[in-house]
């Protein structure tokens, strides 16, 4: 089976020419197959978020290659890289990264503005994404009026609204209690069932021991130290 995402000896160094240069990812080679649920596991500072950023085309590697759907994206011009990011990936950030002044509906609509869609189509997609996370009734509420769990569901709806092939989640259970974490994982399982590929960074045992996870990649100091089935 052809991998959907592939990294080859990928490295990422922040501020490479400065005194505070930090190597976050150091030569990682990995693959994620289509429909697979992969967990990046490791302690804080192990490079999980940086590897997610590389895989999700949010940043470029300092060296090595990132290949998405058979195409090397590491050297793509910014415009095309953005297009790959928009069409292929949906992101659920650890801090959710919602725009606090906007309503739930407007936050979810953000990825659709650059698309060639009519206002009607945009509205339909947003409604479908909100229904998916059971937030249709809160569409007009400001995100600051929502609980942490609801905000995360808004973030998931925003990640899904562009109908991505891969959902990338960074520490998705970090701000949730056990009950909400279970609900979230069930939602992820349903999405995987629907054919979505999942790449999740976490150090929460509740996540990497969940049956939805196919494979665990363990990182330490930016290096891949262990890889295997869940």
């Amino acid at each position, binding site marked *: 089976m052809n991998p959907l995402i592939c990294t080859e000896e990928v490295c990422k160094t922040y501020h490479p020419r400065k005194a505070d240069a930090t190597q976050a990812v150091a030569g990682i080679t990995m693959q994620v197959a289509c429909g697979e649920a992969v967990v990046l596991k490791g302690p804080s500072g192990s490079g999980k978020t940086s590897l997610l950023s590389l895989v999700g085309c949010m940043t470029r590697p300092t060296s090595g290659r990132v290949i998405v759907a058979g195409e090397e994206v590491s050297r793509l011009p*910014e415009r095309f890289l953005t297009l790959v990011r928009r069409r292929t990936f949906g992101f659920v950030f650890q801090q959710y990264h919602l725009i606090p002044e906007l309503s739930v509906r407007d936050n979810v609509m*953000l990825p659709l503005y650059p698309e060639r869609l009519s206002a009607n189509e945009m509205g339909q997609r947003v409604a479908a994404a909100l229904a998916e996370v059971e937030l249709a009734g809160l569409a007009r509420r400001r995100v600051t009026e929502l609980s942490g769990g609801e905000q995360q569901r808004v973030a998931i709806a925003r990640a899904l609204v562009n109908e991505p092939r891969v959902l990338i989640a960074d520490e998705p259970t970090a701000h949730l209690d056990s009950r909400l974490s279970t609900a979230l994982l069930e939602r992820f399982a349903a999405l995987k069932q629907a054919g979505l590929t999942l790449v999740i960074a976490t150090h929460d045992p509740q996540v990497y021991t969940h049956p939805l996870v196919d494979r665990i990649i363990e990182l330490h100091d930016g290096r891949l130290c262990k890889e295997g089935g869940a």
Partner: protein
Amino acid sequence: MRYLKILEYALASLLRRPGKTCAILVVYTLMIVVLASVLFLTQALKTEATAMLAGGPQLVVQKTMAGRHELIPVAEVERLVDIPGVKEVKPRVWGYYYDALTGTNYTLQGFDTSASELSLLDGRLPREEGECAIGAGVAGSRLIHLQDDLILIDYDNIGRIFTVTGVFVSKADVLTQDLVVMPEGPLRQFFGMPESLATDLAVEVYNPNEVDTIANKIKRALPDSRPITQSELLRTYHAVFDWRGGMMLALFSSALMAFCILAWDKATGLSAGERREIGILKAVGWDTGDVLLLKLWEGLALSLLAFLSGCLIAFLLVFWWGAPLLGGILRGWSVLFPALRPTPFIDFYQLGTLAFLTIVPYVASTVIPAWRAAVTDPDEVMRAS
């Protein structure tokens, strides 16, 4: 479609920050009001001066003594008509009158043919002693209308009553604002001016291209005279209004400087919230062009609104409310002149220059910092916020 959607987002984005948006809008609008008022008024005064002189004589001859304007003997007419190229010479009787009642200055003019060139708003020109026609400014300051009495104090401190037979209207507001026209004889009596003297002599020539040459001949024939050509007067008016306008603009350049500092302050950095928003937009799939378009729309919407509001307020201020404060400074008459209602005139070249000098820097100060944030990897922008 995409452009309009991003415009919609930009407008919503401005409305999301009402405090900041309003503050910038107020400062920006005030600056435009001040600068546009000076430009409008300067241009209107220059236009009115041009219109005023267009109906006047080609050449005016004044007598001077010790460098000051004196009354000129009417007998000099005979000497001037003999100069080759001179078509007609007419003595003019006119003068100024300070009206202590209203604290304004009027121009009293003896009736001649040039006055008949002025169109009347209402009524007719005066025909007999005890009649006068007045400008709209005089009518306004004295609160009088057609057939009312205008009482003026003559040179001998005796009150004289004139019946208003007409009220002037003219394309050149400056020309008729402060005008009181009456037959020449009564005006001489009013000023106590002898029949043998006139205020100045109006000279018409056959060939307008020869005006300067004839002015030189007059100067030689009457060494104690000062011939003033229409073009000299026009240049002087324009130079005076340009100089005053320039002085005003120089003074208000401090406002422009303050605005530039504001713009520079904006350009040198985005707030953490703005940087974070750009990072989020990039992360969810906006490319750099989309972010720049968003900021361009934001900057354009705000600056165009401020510019148009500023110009509209300046227009009303100058042409509707008679340019309070600015009018006195630019005309140089302070409170002595009747209230001015300049004829609306807009120089679109100057307005375009003003738009360029204010909108472009503001839009640039909005787009440049956004560009700096937008070209960075969204990952780094998100980590930084």
